[in-house]
């Protein structure tokens, strides 16, 4: 039986709908619909289980239809603890199904590599943190290299298991879960005074991105719209965050190949960009800036002029520091053809953000699902076709330039008015989805409200969730010594994944 995608209930980005409007499917139709939809180029933005009592689990799927700016919603209720796995027919479901297995105990039968993606503590018999079986390549000359979870640098913990033949990597398996905090569980029953702070620390380097996704969700559930001035300020903050992180990433990429000039410059310039955010709200990572109903801070005329002045200096410095990178043949020799992913593979894996755009795939929430200021002001999508470390770096550079232009224009044309309005109480029995293009890629927040207007479930999909497997895939057939470089070109979040 065939299912027409056009008949599936859909909403737009940042829109709320009564849950009763979404038609329930039986499990066969549900799986069939997802397989057909992804076969036609739709993406899985979210796929998660919601316990609904009586030993039943409700599987929710949010499918992104990029070319129509529509989000397809579908669910099915599953009795018992198994269903037929999607992964054999739809690769991007791989990680999601493993998470459902971990969190709800639902077993997708036929899943090719079923194990939890974190270390669940649900049951008494759960394995100890760090205990896991890893994929092994057998053979006399194959050797195994284990890296982490404690790393040499000051970075987050994660375990990497390589199957190598000499210097060549056959297979890399990434084991996360060391940063699990149980945030999603804590969000149920909210929003309360803590919720915003949880959002700002889901991934500390994406404070604005996550706070923005959350705020738009609460606003739509509360039937409130944020003032025009706040939308512009949010756009500026989001792009400042992008500039700061991309600059840091490019510097770190240079550092990984031992190219000191760009490393040193970018380290400082990243600070300059963070300080611009601090100039607006007093915090370098933008905490307290974006909140439901608008923004917590406003930009007065002196600050606007100061920001414009600093933006000019920033742009000039960046052109010098990052220009060095592309003009240095020894750096290019390392970046090019390292960790290549084809456009086809990128679509099948469901990558997002600069990692996807670096494979030549035009995928950008600011364009595909415009929200807030991006409905009025378009930032061109930056892509690079080669799919290697160079492409992921170069996309960042293009985005930095376009973000600088965007911020400059927005600062010059700030609309008047108050940037903060009161948000109404959440409408009961709704589902809403909010997508934001954070600097790492698509941030997806899904909220379901209960009859009391509280969160019955709150799901966060950080872009890292989509991309971790892409990193493992990019390493196949590469040199193990190129792993740190590849890793840096993705620069994924551990805590954003673990939540």
């Amino acid at each position, binding site marked *: 039986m065939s299912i027409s995608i056009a008949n599936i209930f859909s909403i737009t980005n940042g829109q709320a709908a009564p849950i009763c409007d979404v038609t329930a499917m039986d499990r066969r139709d549900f799986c069939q619909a997802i397989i057909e939809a992804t076969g036609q180029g739709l993406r899985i933005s979210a796929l998660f289980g919601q316990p609904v009592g009586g030993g039943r689990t409700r599987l929710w799927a949010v499918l992104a239809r990029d070319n129509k700016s529509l989000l397809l919603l579908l669910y099915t209720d599953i009795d018992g603890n198994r269903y037929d796995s999607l992964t054999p027919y739809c690769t991007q479901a791989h990680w999601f199904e493993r998470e459902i297995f971990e969190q709800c105990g639902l077993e997708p039968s036929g899943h090719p590599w079923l194990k939890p993606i974190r270390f669940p503590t649900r049951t008494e018999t759960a394995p100890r943190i760090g205990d896991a079986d890893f994929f092994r390549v057998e053979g006399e000359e194959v*050797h*195994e*290299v*284990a*890296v982490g979870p404690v790393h*040499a*640098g000051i970075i987050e913990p994660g375990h990497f298991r390589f199957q190598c033949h*000499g*210097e060549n990597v056959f297979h890399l398996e990434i084991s996360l879960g060391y940063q699990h905090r149980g945030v999603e569980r804590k969000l149920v029953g909210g929003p309360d005074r803590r919720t915003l702070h949880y959002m700002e620390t889901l991934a500390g380097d994406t404070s604005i991105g996550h706070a923005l996704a959350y705020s738009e969700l609460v606003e739509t559930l509360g039937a409130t719209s944020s003032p025009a001035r706040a939308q512009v300020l949010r756009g500026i903050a989001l792009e400042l965050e992008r500039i700061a992180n991309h600059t840091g990433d490019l510097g770190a990429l*240079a550092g*990984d*190949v*031992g*190219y*000191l*000039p760009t490393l*040193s410059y970018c380290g400082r310039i990243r600070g300059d960009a963070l300080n611009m955010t601090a100039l607006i709200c007093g915090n370098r990572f933008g905490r307290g800036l974006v909140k439901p109903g608008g923004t917590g801070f406003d930009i007065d005329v002196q600050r606007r002029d100061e920001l414009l002045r600093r933006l000019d200096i920033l742009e000039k410095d960046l052109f010098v520091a990052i220009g060095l990178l592309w003009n*240095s043949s*020894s*750096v290019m*020799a*390392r970046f090019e053809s*390292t960790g290549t992913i084809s456009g086809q593979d990128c679509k099948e894996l469901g990558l997002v953000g600069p990692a996807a755009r670096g494979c030549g795939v035009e995928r950008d929430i600011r364009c595909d699902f415009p929200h807030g200021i991006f409905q009025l002001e378009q930032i061109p999508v930056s892509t690079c076709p080669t799919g290697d470390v160079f492409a992921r770096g170069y996309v960042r550079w293009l985005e930095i330039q376009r973000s600088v232009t965007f911020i400059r224009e927005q600062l010059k044309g700030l609309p008047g008015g108050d940037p903060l309005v009161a948000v109404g109480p959440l409408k009961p029995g709704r589902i809403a989805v909010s997508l934001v293009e954070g600097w790492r890629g698509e941030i997806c927040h899904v909220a379901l409200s209960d009859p009391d207007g509280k969160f019955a479930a709150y799901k966060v999909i950080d872009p890292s969730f989509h991309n971790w497997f892409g990193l493992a895939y990019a390493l196949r057939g590469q*040199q*193990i*010594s*190129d*792993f*740190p*470089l590849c890793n840096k070109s993705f620069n994924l979040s551990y805590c954003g994944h673990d939540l």
Partner: protein
Amino acid sequence: MNFGRLALPVLALALAPLLPGIINRTKAVIGGRDGQPLLQLYYDLAKLVRKGAVYSHTTSWVFRAGPVVGLVSAVAVLAVLPLGGTSAPAGFSGDLIFMAYMLGLMRFFTVIAALDTGSAFEGMGASREVQFSALAEPVLLMALAALSLAARGSGASLGGGLFSLSAIYSHLSISTWMRSGPALLLVAGALWVVFLAENSRIPFDDPNTHLELTMIHEVMVLDHSGPDFAMILYGASLKMWILGALLAGLLVPVRSGNIWIDTGACVFGLFVLAVLTGVVESVMARLRLTRVPQLLVSAGFLSTFALALIIWS
């Protein structure tokens, strides 16, 4: 044996840790930073010898022998190492082979000490080190053979024979450069590559990185601590002094006969070499590991070509 010449090894023992300091300062200045003190390595060594060492239960005496043998081999080389025109205290005919193989012994023990830990990282580093040094060693020997022939060509009879470093270097003067300049330039190029590769500098290795998977030399010594690690750091700085002295002795052909001027010029040359290394590290990225053998082999071609030039000119 001339006891006054013992001054040469003493000079090396005292000044060698200054070389990494100069490199780091150069990088700091170019990077716009203040950087660490010039004498940082001395402070580090003083700190490390006062610390205790930690040994893994899986290691044997081989692991403990590694740093000791490494340091002793380097010190032994100092006995035959001339500095510019100033001869070594214990030079003999064939000491250039002695030098090459003492450095080989140093490497061998570092490698087996690394393998002794049974760590996957150290095994990888050891494999890389052996692969690259197998290519670097012929370059060094070829280059020294070319120098030896060039020095013999200067007409003077070589006291101590053809294979004594002291004899070779005391005859490398301005006139040698006038006669076979192009060949000597090729040799200098080859020795420069050996210097950077053997001392694990960029573009071959990155001494500053914290990424175990990309390291060559540094990853082999991860498990050493305290006084053992001090010996390794000190041994490494002596190795840099030794290979640097071979290059500086060639590039600074001051042979005035005045021991102070000759030695001083060569030591100055060593410092300039350290500055140059710092400059190289500031302006280029390191090579992909698969490219390293190619560069070493090309250095091999340089020194072989130099040898051929000298033989048939």
